[in-house]
C-alpha cells in the first residue's frame, strides 16, 4: 500500500501508474487533487510521527536503565587532599622551661608536613600542639618515684580520646626519668619528655615532642603499609604484605592438633585462656572490627611434611624451606570455610607424635627457633608444643599432657599482633619504652592501626567508585538501579565526611565513616543486578529489529521519496514553460 493511495481506499495494485491525475477525467481532477494533497500530508505526518516521536521513544525504551550517578564527585575524590590531624596536649611542669617562656603559655603550635607517597591522594600530617601549664594534681603525679607510676596516675582521671596524645614536659634535672633517657612513651597515649632551660627551649622541646608524637601516631611507613595495595612501587617487601586487609569483622580460630591420641592425652584450657589472655586484647581491638573467637580439637591430623632427625641433639626438626608445605594439607581439615564470610585467622597448636618428639623448627641458618612457631601472612600461625620428657616417666600410654596456655598465648598474641600489622614503632633516640601491658596492645598502637585503616578504607572506597565509573563507561549494557545509585551517593558522602573528620582530629568517627564508605561502595559494586546483560553482537541487534521496522519503514520512505520527486518536478515545470 502506498501512502498516496490511502485517500482513495482502493485495492492496492502494483501495476497502477504512479501519478494518477494524468489519466483521470477533468471533473474528478479537483477531487483527486484534494485527495492527493491529503495523501501527501498524511504521508508527511506519518513520517514525522515515526521519526520525531517513534524513533526517540524506541531509543529511550531500549537503552539500559542508568540511574544518575555523581560522576564529577567521584572524579573529585581522586584528587582529595587528606589532612590527618593529631591533637597533642603539651603540659609543662613547673621548672621545665625558663620563666619568661612559661609566661607565654597557653598557646598552640601547628606542625604540618606532607607525606611523600606516590599516590594520587595527597596526604598531609598535621600535629596540633596545645601548650599549657600543669595543673596541681599533674604536678603531684610528676613528682612520684618512677615514671610508670606517674604515667598510670596521670591517665586515671579521664579517658583519652582516640587519636589524641598528651605529652608532659618535666624539668631537666628531674629524677623521674633515668639519667640518660630523654623521653618515655607510656602505654596509654601519654609520654614524658625532658625539658630544657634554654633560650630556644620551645623550639628544641617542640622538635623532641614531634619525634615522640610521630613514633606514637603517624609515620610514613605506617601510611605506606596501609596503602601498600594501591601504590605501584615495591610490591615485594614482606613487611607490607603481612597485614590483613581492612574488614568489618574477623574470625579467630584456635585449633589443637593431636596426631597421636594413643600416646598423648592432651588437655588445654582454651576457654580460660581465651577469657584471661585473648579477650582483653580483642576488647581493645574491637574498635577496629567485630572479632569472634572459636576453638576446636582435631585428632589424627598430621603435618604434610616429614621431620628430619638430628642425631647431634637427638631431636627432630623441620627445616625452614619445608615450612610452606605444612599448611595446605592441614587447611582442608580446619573447616575454616564453614566458619563465616569474614576473613579467618587460624592458630594451630601441634603436639608432635611420640615417634617424632621432640620437634623443633629451624630457621634459614639452621638454628632452632626460640618460640618454635611460624606464621603465614593473612592466614594465621602454627606453634609446635613439645611434651615435657619427664611426663613419660610413668610409662603408661596415653600420657596426660596439660598444655601451658600462658606460654602458648604469648606466642599466639604476638602472631596476632603481627598479622594485624601492629608493628614495632620507630623510637626516638634515648627513649624509655614501656612495652605492651597485659592486654598485649597499647592504646596508641590501636590509634596507629585506626589511622592506617581509615586511610586504607578511603583509598579502597575511592578506587572502587572510580572503577565502577570506568566500567560503566567501558561496558555499555550494565544496568544501574536506583538502590545501587543511592549506595553510591552514600559512599561518596561517607568518604567526604571521613576526610573532614580526619582533618578535625576525630579519629573514632572518621574510622566509622570510612568503614561505611567501604561497605557502601562494595555493596554498590558487587550488587548482583550489575551483571552486564549478555552481550549482543551488532549483527544480532540488526537481526532482531529489521523484521519489525523494515515493513513499516519502506512505505514511509518510498512515499517521502515520491513527494520529494514531485516537488522537484513542480519546481522544474515553470522553467519549462518559460
Amino acid at each position, binding site marked *: 500500500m502506498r501512502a498516496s493511495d490511502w485517500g482513495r481506499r482502493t485495492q492496492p495494485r502494483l501495476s497502477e501508474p504512479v501519478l494518477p491525475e494524468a489519466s483521470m477525467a477533468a471533473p474528478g481532477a479537483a477531487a483527486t487533487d484534494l485527495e492527493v494533497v491529503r495523501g501527501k500530508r498524511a504521508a508527511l505526518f506519518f513520517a514525522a510521527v515515526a521519526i520525531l516521536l517513534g524513533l526517540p521513544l524506541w531509543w529511550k525504551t531500549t537503552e539500559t536503565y542508568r540511574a544518575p550517578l555523581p560522576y564529577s564527585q567521584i572524579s573529585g575524590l581522586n584528587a582529595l587532599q587528606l589532612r590527618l590531624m593529631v591533637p597533642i596536649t603539651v603540659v609543662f611542669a613547673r621548672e621545665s622551661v625558663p620563666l619568661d617562656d612559661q609566661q607565654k603559655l597557653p598557646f598552640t603550635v601547628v606542625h604540618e608536613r606532607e607525606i611523600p607517597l606516590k599516590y594520587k591522594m595527597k596526604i598531609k600530617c598535621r600535629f596540633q600542639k596545645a601548650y599549657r601549664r600543669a595543673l596541681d594534681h599533674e604536678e603531684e603525679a610528676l613528682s612520684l618515684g618512677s615514671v610508670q607510676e606517674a604515667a598510670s596516675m596521670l591517665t586515671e582521671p579521664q579517658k583519652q580520646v582516640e587519636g589524641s596524645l598528651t605529652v608532659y614536659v618535666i624539668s631537666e634535672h628531674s629524677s623521674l626519668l633515668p639519667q640518660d633517657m630523654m623521653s618515655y612513651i607510656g602505654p596509654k597515649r601519654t609520654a614524658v619528655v625532658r625539658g630544657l632551660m634554654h633560650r630556644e627551649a620551645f623550639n628544641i622541646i617542640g622538635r623532641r615532642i614531634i619525634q615522640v608524637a610521630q613514633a606514637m601516631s603517624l609515620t610514613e611507613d605506617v601510611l605506606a603499609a596501609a596503602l601498600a595495595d594501591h601504590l605501584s612501587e615495591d610490591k615485594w617487601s614482606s613487611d607490607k*604484605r603481612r597485614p590483613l586487609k581492612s574488614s568489618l569483622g574477623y574470625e579467630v580460630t584456635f585449633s589443637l592438633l593431636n596426631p597421636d591420641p594413643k600416646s598423648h592425652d592432651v*588437655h588445654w584450657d582454651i576457654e580460660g585462656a581465651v577469657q584471661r589472655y585473648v579477650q582483653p586484647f580483642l576488647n581493645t581491638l574491637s574498635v577496629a572490627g567485630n572479632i569472634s573467637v572459636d576453638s576446636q580439637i582435631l585428632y589424627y591430623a598430621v603435618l604434610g611434611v616429614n621431620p628430619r632427625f638430628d642425631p647431634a641433639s637427638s631431636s627432630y626438626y623441620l627445616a625452614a624451606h619445608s615450612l610452606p608445605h605444612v599448611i595446605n594439607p592441614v587447611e*582442608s581439615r580446619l573447616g575454616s570455610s564453614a566458619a563465616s564470610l569474614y576473613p579467618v585467622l587460624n592458630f594451630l597448636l601441634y603436639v608432635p607424635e611420640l615417634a617424632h618428639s621432640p620437634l623443633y623448627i629451624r630457621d634459614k641458618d639452621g638454628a632452632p*627457633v626460640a618460640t618454635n612457631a611460624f*606464621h603465614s601472612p593473612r592466614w594465621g600461625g602454627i606453634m609446635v608444643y613439645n611434651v615435657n620428657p619427664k611426663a613419660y616417666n610413668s610409662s603408661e600410654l596415653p600420657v596426660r599432657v596439660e598444655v601451658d596456655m600462658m606460654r602458648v598465648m604469648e606466642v599466639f598474641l604476638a602472631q596476632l*599482633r603481627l598479622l594485624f600489622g601492629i608493628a614495632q614503632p620507630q623510637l626516638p633516640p634515648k627513649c624509655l619504652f614501656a612495652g605492651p601491658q597485659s592486654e598485649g596492645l597499647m592504646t596508641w598502637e590501636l590509634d596507629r592501626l585506626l589511622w592506617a585503616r581509615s586511610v586504607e578504607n578511603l583509598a579502597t572506597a575511592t578506587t572502587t567508585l572510580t572503577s565502577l565509573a*570506568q*566500567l560503566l563507561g567501558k561496558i555499555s549494557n550494565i544496568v544501574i538501579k536506583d538502590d545501587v545509585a543511592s549506595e553510591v551517593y552514600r559512599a561518596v558522602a561517607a568518604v567526604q565526611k571521613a576526610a573532614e573528620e580526619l582533618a578535625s582530629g576525630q579519629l573514632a568517627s572518621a574510622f566509622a565513616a570510612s568503614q561505611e564508605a567501604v561497605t557502601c561502595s562494595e555493596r554498590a559494586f558487587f550488587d548482583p543486578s*550489575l551483571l552486564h546483560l549478555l552481550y549482543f553482537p551488532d549483527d544480532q541487534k540488526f537481526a532482531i529489529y529489521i523484521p519489525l521496522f523494515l515493513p513499516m519503514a519502506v512505505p514511509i520512505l518510498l512515499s517521502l521519496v515520491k513527494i520529494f520527486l514531485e516537488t522537484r518536478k513542480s519546481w522544474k515545470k515553470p522553467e519549462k514553460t518559460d
Partner: protein
Amino acid sequence: MGATCIPSGALMSLAGILLLSFCSLATYQFEDQAEQFFRSGHTNNWAVLVCTSRFWFNYRHVANTLSVYRSVKRLGIPDSHIVLMLADDMACNPRNPKPATVFSHKNMELNVYGDDVEVDYRSYEVTVESFLRVLTGRIPPSTPRSKRLLSDDRSNILIYMTGHGGNGFLKFQDSEEITNIELADAFEQMWQKRRYNELLFIIDTCQGASMYERFYSPNIMALASSQVGEDSLSHQPDPAIGVHLMDRYTYYVLEFLEEINPASQTNMNDLFQVCPKSLCVSTPGHRTDLFQRDPKNVLITDFFGSVRKVEITTETISLLSDPGVMDNSYREDRVDEESTEPLEYAEQLPVAQIIHQQISKQSHARNF
C-alpha cells in the same frame, strides 16, 4: 724495561682481581634483585574449573575437568580455594557401567572421581550467568562460601574451561553460549576490582584460540588446545565404558603435570611445548603479550600449586600469669569429669510402649 714490566704486570693482576670481585659482587646483587623481581607477588591461589557440556557422550569433558582438579589438589590448592563446575553427573549416570567412577585412562587405570571430590556447581547450576557471577563476584548474598571466588589482589587464579566451542564462543549446557567478548569483559571487571594478581586461562575446545583473542586486561596468560579453524580431538575410547575418556590436549597436559611436585622449578615454557602437533593433531596456541613477566620465569606451581609465604615468629608478648584462677579451673575440670555418668541412648523404638498404648486405646474405645 724490566723495571716497568713487573709493576705493570702486578698492576694488571691487581686490576683483574678487583674487576673480578666487583663483577661477582655486582652479579650477586643483580641476581638477588632479579630473583626478587621475577618472583610473583601472590599470596594465595585459586582455581575455577568448568565443564560445560552435558550428556553421556561428553564423558570426556567431565573427565578432563576432574583430572585437572585432581592435579591441582595434589599440588596443594585446598578445596576451599577451588570452584568446580560440572555440567553433568557422569559418575552416577545411569549409563555408567562402573558407577561412582570417572576414568581418564584406558583400561580403567586411573579413577579421577575419588573420595574427596567437592563439586560446587553441578548439573543445571552451570550456566553462563552463574559462571560470570562467580568471576565478577556479583553473587546473591545467600550463596554459601564454597561457591564464591573470594580472591583478592594477591591471588593467582587458574581458569580451565572445556566443552564444545566454535569461533568466538563456547557452548554451555547445549542451550546457551558465552562469547569471547563477554569473557574479556568479565576479566576486565575482575581487573578493575583487583580480584586477581595474575590469571592463567586454559581452554580445551574446538577452535579454542578464538576465546582468548579478545582479552585486553593486563596479567593474563592464555593457552588453548587448537587454533581457529581446527578441531580439538579426543584421545581414546574405552570399549568397556563405550565413550571417549579424555581429550588429547588435556591428556598430555595431565601427563606433564604428574611429574610436577610442589617444590619443582619447571616453568611455563615447558607447558607451552606440551602436546605438539604430532601427538595432538591440532596446534595448541598460547598468548602471553598481556603478561608482565617473562614466561620462562613463571613457575608452574605459581598457578597450579599453592605455596604459602611463611615467616618465623621471633617475638613474644610477656603475659602476667594468674596461677590461682588456673588451678581452680583445673580442679573444676577434674570434678566435672568424675561426676558425669556414662550416658546411654534413649530407646529409639519403644515397641512395648506403643503396643501398650494401642491396647489401652482400643479398650477405651470399646468402652464407649
